[in-house]
C-alpha cells in the first residue's frame, strides 16, 4: 500500500485534538456574532456595504446585502393542495484529452413529482453526444475557446434548463423547478466577458421562458459553506479597509478573525425547523451579467441542517412565488426519508443524471466500435494506455 497510513495516524489525532481545543472559543465567538447580527440595523449595514463597494478597491470577500432585516425569520407557509416539484441534475463524460476523438456526453436527469389529489411521477433523463464544432467551442466560427472544465459545467447548466423548459411547457401548475446546486455560475468569473455572455445568453433565454410561464426556479445547496453574511458582519466591524487585516488595531479583531472561519449556516443556527431567513443579495461578480435574473438567496432550516436557496430576482420580488418556493422546499424535506432531509425530487433527479463507471466504459466502447466500423482508428495516448493495462 503506497499510502503510509502509519504516518497520517498521529496527524489525524493532532487535528482532532486541535478541533476539540478550539471548539469552546468558536462557540463563544458564534454567540457574540449572533448577538451582533440581532442588534445590527440592516439600513446601516446596507449603507456601509454600498460605501465599501463603491470604493476603488473591490471587497476581497463575497458579502450578503440584506433585502430585509438581518435576523428576521419567516415561518413556512403550507403548500398548495395540488402542486409539482421538478428536481433536476446533470452529469457529463468530459472530453478525453488522451483520445483522438473529441466529444463529450451530457446527461440531464429530472424527477417531475406531482402531489395532491392526483399524485404522479415522471423520472427521466435526456442524454446527448456532443461532437460538432458548435458543441465543442464557445465560438465555433473561429474554433476558439474549447468547452471543457468550468465551461462544460456551465454548458450543463444551460442544457439542464433547456430540457426543463421543454418539460414544463405542458406540465401542471403550480410547479417549482429545483436545481441541485447554485444558480450563480461563479466558475465563469475568470472567463472573459465575451465568453460569459456567450454561455449565459442561452441560460437566460430559458429563464425568460420560465418566468413568462410563471414557473419559479430555485437552486438548493445542502451543507452550504457560504460566508456571505459572516463577511458582511466583518465589513461592519472593519474600521479601515477589509483587505488590510494585518494592520488592524480594532478591539473586535478577534471576533472578525473568528467570523472569517464561520459559516452562515452556523450564524443562522437560531432558525427553527421550517423557518427561513429574509432575502439577501449576493455580491458575486458574475451577477453583473445576470440582468433581470440576478440571483438572491435565503437560508432555510429544513430540519437537521440549514441550506442555502438561491432564486432569481423575479422570484424573490414576487411574494406569491417566493412563498411557494419556501413551502414546496419545506414540504419536500418533510417527505424525505433521510435525516438530515434532502428533497426527494433532487435525490431522484440525481439517480437519473448520474453516469456510472460501467456506463462510461460502455460509451467509450460504443464510440470505439462505431469509429472502427467506418475504417477509422481511435488512438489513445501511451500514458492512458499504460494506466489501463497496469502491467507488472
Amino acid at each position, binding site marked *: 500500500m503506497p499510502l503510509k497510513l502509519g504516518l497520517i495516524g498521529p496527524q489525524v489525532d493532532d487535528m482532532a485534538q486541535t478541533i476539540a481545543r478550539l471548539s469552546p472559543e468558536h462557540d463563544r465567538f458564534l454567540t457574540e456574532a449572533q448577538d451582533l447580527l440581532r442588534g445590527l440595523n440592516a439600513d446601516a449595514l446596507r449603507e456601509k456595504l454600498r460605501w465599501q463597494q463603491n470604493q476603488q478597491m473591490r471587497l476581497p470577500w463575497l458579502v450578503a446585502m440584506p433585502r430585509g432585516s438581518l435576523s428576521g425569520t419567516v415561518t413556512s407557509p403550507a403548500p398548495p393542495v395540488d402542486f409539482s416539484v421538478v428536481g433536476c441534475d446533470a452529469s457529463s463524460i468530459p472530453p478525453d484529452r488522451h483520445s483522438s476523438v473529441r466529444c463529450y456526453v451530457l446527461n440531464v436527469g429530472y*424527477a417531475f413529482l406531482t402531489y395532491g389529489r392526483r*399524485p*404522479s411521477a415522471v423520472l427521466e433523463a435526456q442524454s446527448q453526444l456532443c461532437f460538432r464544432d458548435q458543441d465543442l467551442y464557445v465560438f465555433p466560427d473561429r474554433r476558439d475557446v474549447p468547452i471543457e472544465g468550468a465551461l462544460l459545467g456551465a454548458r450543463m447548466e444551460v442544457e439542464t434548463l433547456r430540457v426543463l423548459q421543454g418539460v414544463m411547457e405542458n406540465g401542471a401548475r403550480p410547479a417549482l423547478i429545483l436545481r441541485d446546486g447554485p444558480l450563480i455560475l461563479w466558475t465563469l468569473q475568470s472567463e472573459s466577458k465575451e465568453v460569459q455572455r456567450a454561455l449565459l445568453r442561452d441560460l437566460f433565454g430559458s429563464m425568460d421562458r420560465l418566468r413568462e410561464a410563471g414557473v419559479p426556479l430555485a437552486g438548493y445547496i445542502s451543507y452550504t459553506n457560504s460566508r456571505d453574511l459572516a463577511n458582511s458582519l466583518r465589513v461592519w466591524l472593519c474600521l479601515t479597509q477589509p483587505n488590510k487585516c494585518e494592520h488592524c488595531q480594532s478591539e473586535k479583531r478577534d471576533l472578525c478573525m473568528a467570523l472569517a472561519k464561520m459559516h452562515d449556516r452556523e450564524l443562522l443556527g437560531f432558525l427553527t425547523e421550517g423557518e427561513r431567513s429574509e432575502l439577501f443579495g449576493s455580491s458575486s461578480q458574475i451577477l453583473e451579467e445576470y440582468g433581470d435574473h440576478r440571483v438572491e438567496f435565503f437560508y432555510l432550516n429544513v430540519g437537521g441542517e440549514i441550506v442555502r436557496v438561491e432564486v432569481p430576482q423575479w422570484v424573490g420580488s414576487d411574494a406569491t412565488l417566493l412563498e411557494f418556493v419556501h413551502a414546496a422546499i419545506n414540504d419536500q424535506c418533510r417527505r424525505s426519508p433521510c435525516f438530515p432531509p434532502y428533497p426527494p425530487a433532487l435525490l*431522484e433527479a440525481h*439517480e437519473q443524471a448520474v453516469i456510472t463507471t460501467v456506463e462510461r466504459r460502455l460509451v467509450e466502447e460504443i464510440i470505439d466500435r462505431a469509429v472502427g466500423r467506418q475504417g477509422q482508428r481511435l488512438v489513445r495516448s501511451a500514458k492512458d494506455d499504460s494506466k489501463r493495462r497496469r502491467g507488472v
Partner: protein
Amino acid sequence: MRIGEIIETTSSGFVAESFELNRPPALGSLVLVRLPDETALYGAVTYGQTAGVDPSRRAVRRSTDVVFDGAIYEQHPELEHILRTEFGVALVGFVAAGRLRHHLPARPPPLHFSVQGVSREEVCYFTDGLLYFRLLLIPYGDVPPQQVLAANVRWVYEQRGHDDIWLDTAAREIATLLKNDSAALLTVLYAIDPGDVPMLREQGGVA
C-alpha cells in the same frame, strides 16, 4: 392477460417483473409464456419479491404518525418508479404441437417475453395430469418446495371449482412422491389444509 415480463431465464425457470407493484401473482399459481411457434410454456410461481430497481439502494422507512401503508405511495409518487416487484417461476411443462408435456422444455423462454395469466380451461387442461408435481418439488428460489407445491394444490383446487376428486388424487400423488419423507409429506398436506384433504380426514388429521 399479460402480467409481467421475463428479466432472467434458465432451463428450469425464469424471473419476471410484475406489471403491478406489490402484486405478484399468487404463490403456486400457474402462468404461461407463449412462443412464436405456438408453444405454450407453463410455470408455477415460486416466490414474489418487491425491492428497489437499483440493487444498491435499500428501501428505508417512510411512514410517519399520520402517513402510513397505502398513503405512503400517495405521498411519494416516485416509489412506483424506483421500486419493482418480481416473481420467480419454475417451469412445469409445455404444450407443443397440440401435446401436453409435464417436463422441462428444450429451451428456456426468451428474455423480455410476456408472462400471462392462465384461464380456468387452461388450468383444468394442464392439471388433469399430476406429473408436474415432480418438477415443483425441485427448489427454485428461497421458498421451500413443499410450500410451493401446497400453494399450487390450493390454487388449482380453487380454480377447478373446489374439485374434491382432483384434490383427493393430488393428495395421493403427493403421498406417493414423498412416501420416503414423512416430515415433508406432512408439511405439504398440513399446508394444503387438513380439513380439505380426504386422506387426512380418514387418518383423523395430522395432529
